[in-house]
């Protein structure tokens, strides 16, 4: 039974999970900022866009104030994961923890802080956070879930069902890695190219008619990623190039999070996304000259606004 859920992190993804799940279970949101928790306690959490309702959640920025829960969804950015896992450490022994960060390796970070059963997640949904108590649900895509490190599959299925009942889209996989890798290769390419060019994920990413068209670079980056997946013995769930073409034809161009980070001059998730791919490539002895080049450019771009 899933009676109480705690969402750690009240960004776009955390807010979308919290609001929807509040329709089918008790939901607590563990926020970073106390004023965010107070706003959620005082008001409702409004969802507009693809869903249109107000959910009622409990919230606090103090992990000791959260009652025991069945499911903990860690929905911070990758850059906030370590702090989130530290907040959970030594608490909530009955909980199953779900990670939905970009890139690879979020599960291992959580594992270092406790021996909860862990569910791996990859989410494709997106939206915009208008304020602490209003999130717009823009892209109603699926969240994919799979067992990590021996978590029983029926626990994963139960979680997928409760997310679906709340009004989001979810799918349970016996092995999430093929899907995780498809998204990793897609993300490492699209996020880095968007962050460097300033382009949202639009038709330029799939254009290959002329020699200098951006699609050639996008394809070459994806081929590098696929070579790593192949060396790791992973059969991809979806071809990243097909995902790219499909996404650019959806009509409204998606603004990749790394482009938002660069425009706001924040630290990006490059280490968790491209960095994860490069770590794997090194381990497997696969050479990735183009991803290495983009990684170096983005790391340097981050230093340009640190002075």
């Amino acid at each position, binding site marked *: 039974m899933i009676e109480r859920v705690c969402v750690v992190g009240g960004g776009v993804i955390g807010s979308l999970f919290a609001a929807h799940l509040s329709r089918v279970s008790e939901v607590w949101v563990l926020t970073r900022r106390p004023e965010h928790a107070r706003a959620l306690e005082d008001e409702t959490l409004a969802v507009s866009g693809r869903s249109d309702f107000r959910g009622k959640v409990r919230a606090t920025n103090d992990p000791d104030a959260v009652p025991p829960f069945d499911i903990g969804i860690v929905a911070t950015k990758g850059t906030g994961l370590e702090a989130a896992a530290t907040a959970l450490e030594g608490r909530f022994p009955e909980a199953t923890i779900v990670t939905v960060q970009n890139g690879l390796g979020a599960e291992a970070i959580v594992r270092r802080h406790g021996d909860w059963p862990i569910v791996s997640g990859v989410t494709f949904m997106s939206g915009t956070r208008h304020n602490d108590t209003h999130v717009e649900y823009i892209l109603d895509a699926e969240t994919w879930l799979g067992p990590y490190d021996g978590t029983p599959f029926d626990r994963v299925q139960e979680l997928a069902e409760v997310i679906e009942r709340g009004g989001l889209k979810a799918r349970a996989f016996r092995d999430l890695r093929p899907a995780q890798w498809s998204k990793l290769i897609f993300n490492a390419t699209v996020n880095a*190219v968007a962050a*460097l*060019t*300033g*382009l949202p994920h639009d038709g*330029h990413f799939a254009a290959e008619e002329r020699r*200098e*068209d*951006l699609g*050639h*670079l996008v394809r*070459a980056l994806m081929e590098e990623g696929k070579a790593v997946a192949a060396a790791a013995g992973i059969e991809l769930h979806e071809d990243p190039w097909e995902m790219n073409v499909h996404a650019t034809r959806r009509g409204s161009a998606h603004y990749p999070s790394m482009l938002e980070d660069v425009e706001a001059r924040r630290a990006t998730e490059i280490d968790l996304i491209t960095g994860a791919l490069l770590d794997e490539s090194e381990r497997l002895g696969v050479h990735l*000259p*183009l991803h*290495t*080049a*983009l990684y*170096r*450019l983005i*790391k*340097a*771009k981050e*230093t*340009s*606004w640190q002075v």
Partner: protein
Amino acid sequence: MKVCIVGCGAVGSLFAANLALLDDVEVWAYDLSTPHVTAINEHGLRLTGAGEVHATRITATADATELPPCDFGLVATKAMHTEAAIAATMHAFRGGSVASVQNGVGNEETLAAHVAQVIRGTTFPAGKMLEPGLVQWDVKGETTLGPFEPRPAPGGEIERLAEACTRAGVPTAAVADARGAQWRKVIFNASTNPVGALTGLTHGRVCELPQLRRLVTGLVDEGKAVAAAQGIDLGADPEELIEHAARPEVAYGHKASMLQDVEARRQTEVDYLNGGIVRFGREHGVPTPLNAAVVALIKGLEHSWTQS
């Protein structure tokens, strides 16, 4: 001697102002910026920074039909404007020789489609426009002139132009094969300019980050392979230029022209820098994946502000 500067931006102004200090040189400047042309004609052309110059004997015009027959043309436009600039001014050079002192590769080919005597040129002095009639002179350096092989200017003419520039304070060498100097500079520019443009960092800061510096070397190595495949002797390693320029007293704080372009949301010269290396590489069977990636990223950046 009559010299016409075609394109009197930062680099063109450095030549124009210095040459105009010589009694035996009559300097004309052709530029499409009316405020700049007016300022030069009314108040003269001033340089500040690496040298302080105030040249009052320049005749500037935005109307190419006003140009007299000239002994020399010095083309200093951005590379993407070469075609339009030489098509407009070619009548002034029927009896003269035209040198490119532009960035990149492929400019001489464009000039040779319009004029008979072409000089292959490479220049290192750099600066930026501060206001109409006033240019900041950031970097001093050598200029190299040589014949453009398919339609060469006579050797004596190349020496005459080089001698005048040197006397004016812009050290210039006339050489038999200027390809080495040109490719050394195009490799230098293609390996550093877009890196500065994509990261927002000055040349010196690019060189201080070891990981980024390795990317620069990756770009340099592709350019060297393309030059070698054409039988071009680079003379010196472009890496030396890069290290030299990173010194505080040389160009540590210099924002590459491509970074200036990106910040001002102007079209860049990437097609003639990395794009040139990719093009010559393709012709000679040398793969250039990093340079091709840089072209795609910079073109993407240009698209990002033309569509929004």
